């Protein structure tokens, strides 16, 4: 049985009240979701919250989740992306449950920001509609048809949004690079950037 077949099967069992089946979906995708989330939020504990929120949202909105070729992962990634935009607000609904999850271990300073690089910094500046298509089509390598299915929009819309998202992303990265170059030049010249 493939993973995606297992997703659909486990989802059906979860809807019938089988919590362990829901946990199997969690086991299958938690690592991928965590790696996705740490690029979008400041700390590892925020990323932990995003993973928790995403699965709890999946259950709360269980009549709205979408499968792509039987896999729940695209929907989970999009939901994690949304949740990460304001993780403290998203966590309010589930604070009591999330507090049951231990804080990250072996992190010297919880305030340390996880640096995921300029591309993820730029991604955070996009609107949610643009983030969605970048995550699915660029990060996940989905076709426009698959992304359209995951998002419930037309393939043409995915193409159009992808075009604008790439433009905005390139614009943002270019701005950041210019600022970094200026900073470096200023530092070399002994000035304050």
């Amino acid at each position, binding site marked *: 049985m493939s993973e995606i077949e297992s997703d659909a099967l486990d989802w059906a069992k979860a809807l019938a009240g089988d919590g362990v089946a829901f946990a199997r979906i969690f086991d299958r995708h938690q690592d991928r979701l965590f790696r996705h989330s740490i690029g979008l939020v400041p700390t590892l504990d925020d990323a932990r919250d995003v993973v928790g929120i995403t699965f709890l949202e999946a259950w709360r909105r269980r009549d709205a989740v979408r499968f792509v070729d039987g896999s729940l992962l695209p929907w989970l990634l999009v939901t994690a992306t949304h949740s990460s935009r304001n993780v403290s607000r998203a966590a309010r609904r589930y604070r009591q449950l999330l507090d049951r999850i*231990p804080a990250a271990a072996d992190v010297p300073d919880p305030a340390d920001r996880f640096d995921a690089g300029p591309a993820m910094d730029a991604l955070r500046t996009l*609107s949610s509609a643009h983030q969605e298509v970048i995550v699915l089509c660029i990060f996940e390598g989905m076709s426009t048809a698959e992304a359209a299915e995951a998002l419930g929009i*037309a393939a043409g819309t995915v193409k159009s949004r992808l075009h604008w998202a790439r433009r905005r992303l390139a614009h943002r990265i270019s701005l950041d690079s210019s600022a970094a170059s200026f900073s470096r030049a200023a530092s070399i010249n002994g000035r304050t950037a």
Partner: protein
Amino acid sequence: MPSLTSPQRDALRDVLIETVELTDGSRRSAQLVRRLGAGALASGAIVTALIAGSLIGTGTTPSAEAAELLTMAAVRTADDMPITAGQYMRIETRAEYLALTSSDGSSDQMIGYLSPQVNTVFASLDGSSELSGETVYPEPVTFFGAGARAFAQADSAARVLEDAPSSDNTPMNGELGGSQSPIWDLPALPGDPRQLLDRLREGAVEGASPDEEAFERMSDVLSSGRADAELRQSVYGALALIPDLTIVEDSVALDGRTGTAFSLATFEGDNRHDIILDPSTGKFIGERLVTVNGFGAIPAGTAMESTAVTMSIVDASTLPHRVD
């Protein structure tokens, strides 16, 4: 690469198992669908007072004409049509999306076509039936640039291969082609326009202004077809509080209906987002995303995305197929 620790995974797994096993089986969609036919609670007078109160002392400077027309729209928004058991709310969304491609990967060589689609959704009052709908894809008729027609034909052929059933496309909860926004849901949104605007501005991204983010979310709410009269009134009031809102056209035809386009420039400055209303009746007509300057073979003023929403009440006997 960091990962969740073993104790974190175990704890979260326990939370999820408990959440599923403690669920009482009630379905949230039923609550949302009931809200469709619930009718407005706020009277026009109350809404007028709310909006006026919100405008006074805000220090914002929206276009006076835009604010006046939006206030009129809020006041004249009629109560939702009463819906009874056995009846369905029919929500028809007619949309056109600009599909783009480029012969050499640069935006200078962009060609495209407007891809039309008509999405019809039926929602029952009592929640006994799931939302169900169908989407049909009429043939494109608008093309931009040499090769655009062939591009459209290739797209159409690919869709047939990849997505054999081109109908029976159940929309996601609360969305008819809009973005998937799981964090806020309609019944939880504040009724006061100022509070609503503040709520929708929360979490705006660095590149877009909070007002742009809020405007997009208001557009999503209105085009979802799920905002009842009370919420539509609040949204119109909140729109009137956006400082840079303008009226670009006072007579816009969309899907055979005429309204006023309330617009906000987007981050790049070369696009604008329009929400189109009929201020005399308070009816939401649709929305558009317009390229102001054009690019490649796409002319200035082209609506890259446009959506028109029509709602009506139908009896179960008129449905094209069972929806439960």
